[in-house]
Structure formats: C-alpha cells, structure tokens
C-alpha cells in the first residue's frame, strides 16, 4: 500500500484551512493568522482586534461549515452509490436535495411574508428552515421507498427519485415565481448554495450529524461491502438487505437535509468526490470512508475560496461552481462507462 497519497491528503487538510483563512477581501497575512491563533493561548502574542474578529468569527466558521458540508455530502454520495450499486447516485438523484431545498424555500418565503421585522428572527428562521428542509427530504425518501417495490428494486428507486426531484424543483420554481422580485433573487441566491451565513451557532448540528453518520456508516462497513456483491450474495452472507438499504437512505437524507438547511443546494459533490477518491486511492479500501470525508472537505474549502475570490468583492454561489465542475465530471464518468 502506497502511503504517499494519504500523507499528501492529510497535509492538504491541514494547510487548506490556513490558506483559506488568509484569502479574502480584508488583507490578512499568514503571520496575522499565526498571531491571532497564538493570542488565543498566550498573552505573549498580540493581534489587531478587527482582524481577529474577521478571522475568528467570519472566516473560520465559514471554512469549518464548508469542510463539514463537503465531507458530509461526499459521505452521503458514497453510501448511496454503495447501497444502490449505482455509480451515479447522490443526494440529488433521489430527490433528497430538491425536497430539502423546496421545504427550506417554502419556509423562507412564507415566514418572510408573515413575520418580517421581528427581533429574534434569524434564530427562529434557522430552526424553521432546518425543519422545512428535513420534512421536504423525508417526503422525497418516503416517495422513493414506497415506489421502490417490495424487493426494493434499484431501477425503480432511481426513476422514482428522478421524478420526485423534478416534482420538487417545479414546486420550488413556483414559489420563486410567486415571490416579489427582490425576495426571489434572495431565494435564488440561497438555493444555489453559500457558506456566507456560517457562524459558530449553526456549526453544531452539521458537526454532530456528520460524526453520528460517520460512526454508523463505519459500523455497517461489512454490510455495505456485501451489498456491493449483489442482493443475493449479501443475503447469503446474512445481511438484511432491505433494512440496511432503507436505514442508510434515511440517515443520508437526514444529513443532507441538515446540510442543505445551512448552506442551500450544493449539487454534484456527493456524486463526484467518491469517484475521484476510488480512482486515486485504489488500494486503500479499508480507509476509504476517512479519505472520502477528508477529500470532500478539502475540496469544498477550496470551492468556497474560489467562490469568494473569483470576482473581486462579489460572492459567487457555491452551487454554481460545484455544478460546473461536477457536470463535466459526470460526462467523463459516462464516457468511461461506454468504453468498458
């Protein structure tokens, strides 16, 4: 087993957040960052108060949220690809993301009309958006599972997922159409994904769900690997195929809903990262889940850096960048498939 790629990845996972802390509108250098970190632990270092707040309260939570989102969506995609044995599976394919987006957009649009101008607004809003996103994604999963047939046929699931996804996208478009122009532009920006709303308070839930999912998925590694060999083989190894499949679907949808509620719709990461990792880290199947989480996190940190620095002073929606890269990758995967 070649250890070099893993070492490189771990180094990247350490260096990338520091680089991301330095890059931004405000001019902050590596030594500033060092001083700020140092001043947290010792009185010997001093740092500029405003720079310290920019780094600690704007950039750091943002980078952590980006990392958690990239890691979580990649993990969700990887698990979905395994339990459905479909290389193109990701939270989008099963309507999980579009259901979550619809739920969240609905809450934003309606709460916006009813509650505008209230004081403790954003905290209630956040809870409402998370709840709406989860209910939307849960409905998607229920539709997909109920249509999957008694033997949980994968083809039926994929088709049901695609149809559900379109249904929720249409509903989201309808809400956008009905909103007034300015609110529509905000909703659109939201639905394309951004980490700009990150703060320390809203990091907890994504962090906890990622840890829980990671532990549970790790615990199911044997069953998941068995599923790759086909339902019959898995059954003969004593795996309760349907139970495993449905519980994995519910877990991934819960994780996706929480991430979407905090960041908006970010597509294709769940599809793309597991494929890249499987190709780059061929002989590391024992640690694949770790590698996918780290790779997805690092990737998303850099996507966010691109999003906030590609056009000076402007912030591009993250979803545009991931989807642009992701769709090209999708085509490449398809091309390879047709060769083999």
């Amino acid at each position: 087993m070649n250890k070099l790629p893993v070492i490189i990845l771990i180094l990247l996972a350490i260096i990338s957040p520091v680089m991301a802390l330095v890059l931004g509108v405000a001019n902050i250098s590596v030594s500033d960052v060092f001083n700020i970190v140092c001043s947290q632990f010792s009185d010997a270092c001093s740092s500029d108060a405003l720079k310290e707040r920019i780094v600690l309260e704007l950039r750091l939570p943002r980078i952590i949220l980006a990392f958690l989102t990239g890691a979580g969506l990649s993990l969700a995609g990887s698990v979905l690809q395994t339990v459905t044995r479909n290389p193109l599976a990701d939270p989008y394919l099963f309507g999980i993301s579009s259901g979550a987006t619809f739920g969240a957009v609905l809450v934003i649009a309606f709460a916006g009309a009813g509650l505008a101008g209230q004081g403790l607004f954003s905290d209630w809003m956040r809870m409402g958006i998370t709840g709406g996103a989860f209910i939307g994604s849960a409905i998607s999963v229920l539709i997909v599972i109920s249509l999957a047939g008694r033997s949980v046929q994968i083809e039926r699931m994929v088709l049901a997922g695609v149809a559900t996804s379109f249904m929720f996208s249409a509903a989201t478009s309808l809400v956008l159409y009905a909103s007034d122009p300015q609110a529509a532009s905000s909703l659109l920006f939201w639905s394309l994904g951004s980490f700009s709303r990150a703060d320390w308070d809203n990091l907890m839930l994504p962090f906890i769900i990622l840890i829980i999912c990671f532990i549970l998925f790790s615990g199911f590694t044997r069953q998941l690997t068995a599923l790759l060999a086909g339902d019959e083989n898995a059954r003969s190894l004593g795996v309760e195929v349907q139970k495993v499949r449905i519980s994995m679907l519910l877990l991934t949808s819960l994780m996706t809903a929480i991430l979407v509620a905090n960041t908006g719709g970010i597509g294709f990461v769940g599809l793309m990262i597991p494929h890249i990792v499987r190709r780059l880290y061929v002989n590391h199947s024992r640690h694949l889940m770790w590698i996918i989480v780290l790779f997805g996190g690092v990737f998303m940190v850099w996507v966010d850096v691109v999003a906030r620095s590609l056009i000076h002073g402007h912030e591009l929606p993250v979803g545009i960048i991931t989807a642009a890269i992701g769709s090209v990758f999708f085509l490449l995967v398809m091309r390879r498939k047709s060769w083999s």
Partner: protein
Amino acid sequence: MLRLFVILISISFFSNAYGYELPNVKNAQRIIALSPHSVELLFALGVGDRIIGTTDFADFPEAAKDIERIGGYHGIQMERVLELKPDLVVAWQGGNSDEDINQLESLGLPVYRSATKRLKHIATEISVLGQLTGTSAKADALIKDLHSVLAALKNKNKDKPKVSFFYQLWSSPIRTISTGSWINEMMEICGGENIMQDPSVEYPQISLETVLLSAPQAIIIPSSHGHDNGKLSGLKWEDWPEIPAVKNNHIYRINGDILHRFSLRVIEATQTVCETFDQIRLVKH
C-alpha cells in the same frame, strides 16, 4: 447600406433624449402607466384620474390604489391593455420587459418609453408627461420647484463635514449602491460619502468584510416591499461594534419607496437623508 444610414439618421433626429421617438399625443385622456413612478408623476401633474390601468406596486397617492391592475413584474396582460383602448401607454424601459414594450408598440399603441437613469431624469420625465397630457405649464412649475429645493439642500450641506455611509439595499446577499447609482446622488447632496467608490457597477454585491474594513459612520437601510430585514443572512449589526455606525447606534431605516422611485417624493427622501446625516454630525467622534 445608404438607405439604412438615412433611416438611422432620421430616427435619431426625430427621437427624444433616450433615442426613442415620442408618440404623437398631445392631450392623452386614457393612460396606461406601467410603473409606480409614472403614476405618481401623472398624479402630481393633476391628471391621475386619466390613468385607466397600471401595475402591481403603484400605491401612491392613495387614489392610485383604485386603478385597475393590468400587470406586474411577471408581465403585462396584453389583451386587457387592448380592451381598455388607451391613447397613451407610459412604459418603463428597464422595469417592464423589452418584449412587452416591443409588443405594445407593434400592436400600434402610442407608447412612451420612460427611461430614467439619473436624478435629473425626473425633470425630463415630468416635462415629457406634461407635453403628452397637455399640462406643460404645470410641469414647468413642478420642475422649477424640484430644482430649487434640491439646489437649496445642496447649498446648505456643501460645507458640512462628510458623513461616510453604507447603504444596505439587501442583506442576503449583501447588496449596496455605488457612487454610480442615482440614489447616491441624493446622498451626495446631503454631504454623504459612499463606502463603495467604484461607479462601474451601480448595485454591487459585497461581503461583510468590506463593510467592516471601511468603517462607515452611518448605515442606511431602505424599508420597502419584500425587504428581507436581514432574515436570510441573520445580518446582526449589533455583533459588530467595531463599525462606528453600530457603536453610535447610527442605523437608520428610511422608506424605500420614496428613495427608490423616480417621483417627486425624492424631495422628501433627500430631506430625510439630510436630517439623518445632521443627527450623525451632532455626535462627537
């Protein structure tokens, strides 16, 4: 080629300042006004009762609320417009879709394209509407009034210390006005200094870091239809006392309808802005 050239020359010769021909209307009686500001200006000219159709957000003056709605942001109901048989349609270049305006023209309706871009265009607009409705004398009086009030405000504030401000047009994403925007002209009259000095983009989207670094003395938030009040982003200014505007509690909400419409209410808007800046100057920093 020569023919095309002649046509182009003649078009530019007969058209008004915006490059569009004015409809040949002298005393319009059945008007469809497709923007809130043209409704306000027609009422100011005393011919508001001649408006027979307008769009969703035309809500000032009070009487405007009774006018039939024939469209809005998503488009114009062409069939209803034809049914109403208007003798003048005041369209809004940039506010209504180009397709809609072109279709109105190709249907043979007399269309005037209101194309306001700067503060001075309000006067142009009043003058043209006066011409089209046979109220030029009233129009001239209104223009004179507008000019004298704005000139007086400008004169009064020109030697006062500058007040740096951030204009929070929208909070998610954070969008502001730059020095290239016409709204900024009102701020300038009152001695305001925009933290966004790049005039190339009128309504730039910026990051919170930019606002923090430029440390504005005032934050102006226009309140209007559908304003999100920071709910999506959770923009909580009180978390950032490093900004002088936050520390001194100089965050002001001003009615966005009077600030953002090309109507005579810009007088009220400018007066409010000037008073706001005066309050800020009173506080010693």
